[in-house]
């Protein structure tokens, strides 16, 4: 008898969607880069969604603050996703990549090798741009002052009430 896990994996692996998706990843390096960008971002989005859910369920947080904390988590999650995706797409842009690779790999005269180097650079630079620069430098620099502003505003409103 086939184990249910094996049956599920088999069905997944042989579905038309997955086969088409994997073939596209092999044939099209641009598609692969964007797929990895999406998987990386979706992990963050899922983790933030989980945080929002946990905050809303946490009885130790007072009700009036609960909604604010959850909204801040949701806003940070959305900011992280949007900034990462935007940075990734910007770096992966054909024209920008072409210009950088032309300068960076000017010493590679073999056309095939130049193409391979450009494809490798495109994937790595896009992921570095989104995962390292956007997520770890740009997002905290944007999110911290915004969070500070809203916290201050919330405290002021709270005091008035």
């Amino acid at each position, binding site marked *: 008898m086939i184990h249910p896990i*094996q049956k599920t*994996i088999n069905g*997944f692996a042989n579905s038309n969607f997955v086969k088409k998706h*994997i073939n596209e990843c092999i044939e099209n390096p641009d598609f692969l880069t964007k797929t990895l960008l999406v998987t*990386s971002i979706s992990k963050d989005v899922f983790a933030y969604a989980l945080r929002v859910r946990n905050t809303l369920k946490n009885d130790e947080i007072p009700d009036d603050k609960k909604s604010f904390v959850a909204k801040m988590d949701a806003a940070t999650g959305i900011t992280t996703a949007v900034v990462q995706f935007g940075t990734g797409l910007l770096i992966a842009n054909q*024209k920008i990549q072409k210009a950088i690779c032309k*300068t*960076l790999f000017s010493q590679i005269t073999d056309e095939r090798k*130049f193409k391979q180097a450009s494809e490798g650079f495109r994937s790595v630079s896009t*992921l570095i741009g989104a995962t390292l620069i956007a997520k770890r430098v740009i997002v905290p620099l944007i999110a911290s002052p915004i969070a500070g502003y809203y916290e201050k505003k919330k405290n002021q409103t709270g005091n008035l009430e």
Partner: protein
Amino acid sequence: MKINSLNGSINFKGGTGLSKGFRYALGEGFAKIDQIGEGTNIALDFIGKAVIVPAVILAVSKEDKEKKEYSALKNPVAATIQLLMEVPILMACSKFIEKLANSGALDPQTGIKHYNESEAKKLFLHFTERASKNDKTFEEKSKELITRLDKEGLTKKLKEDFKILIKNLKNPTDKKLLGSALEGYNHTKKMLFHLQNRISFIAALALTPVLCMAEDFIFPKIMNLIIKKPQEPVKKERPITLEKYINLIRQGGVK
């Protein structure tokens, strides 16, 4: 940087300032990049949390030195815990899928085999052996490449080396069959690699709640081990009041 308004192309003027040798080596290095997947994502996320975040905190944060150092240290610790949980999931999942695929369990009994890398390798080796019988030069050179294949697997560089060798085969039938077998082997290997990555991603996503709980449980324990608990602030004696002074005198005097 100059943007051409006619065709929209971008030109970087003045070069990169990097030496020719370095640019050549850089190009060679990027050309060798082959399998980018979830492993790359995990590694970059780790570097971001363990290196970039502390650097940003130390450079930008306006908090006092002690708080800044604590914030800078907690990120590499959290990143290491995350890495120690994510890597085994990726490895175990990949190994499990590889085993299933190489046993033929993920492919139909008849028809095209998409994921059985072991079978594709066997077929390629069979045609290599066949071509070796007809071509002595090929036999000698292919032996060395097969030793590398057993050691490293089918890397991008090795595939290129095999291609060059096959191109020089004298027998056209061997050339055609071996060329197709090599392409098939490479394609199957890539299909399996991407399947492993997608399933590992789904597994990591499904396990996120458990991973978060485990991280929340382990993290404070490790931080307590690394960092000495801040000393309790010394309680300042309240300035002595006249009333207290009189009471103390009544009780036996002030020391």
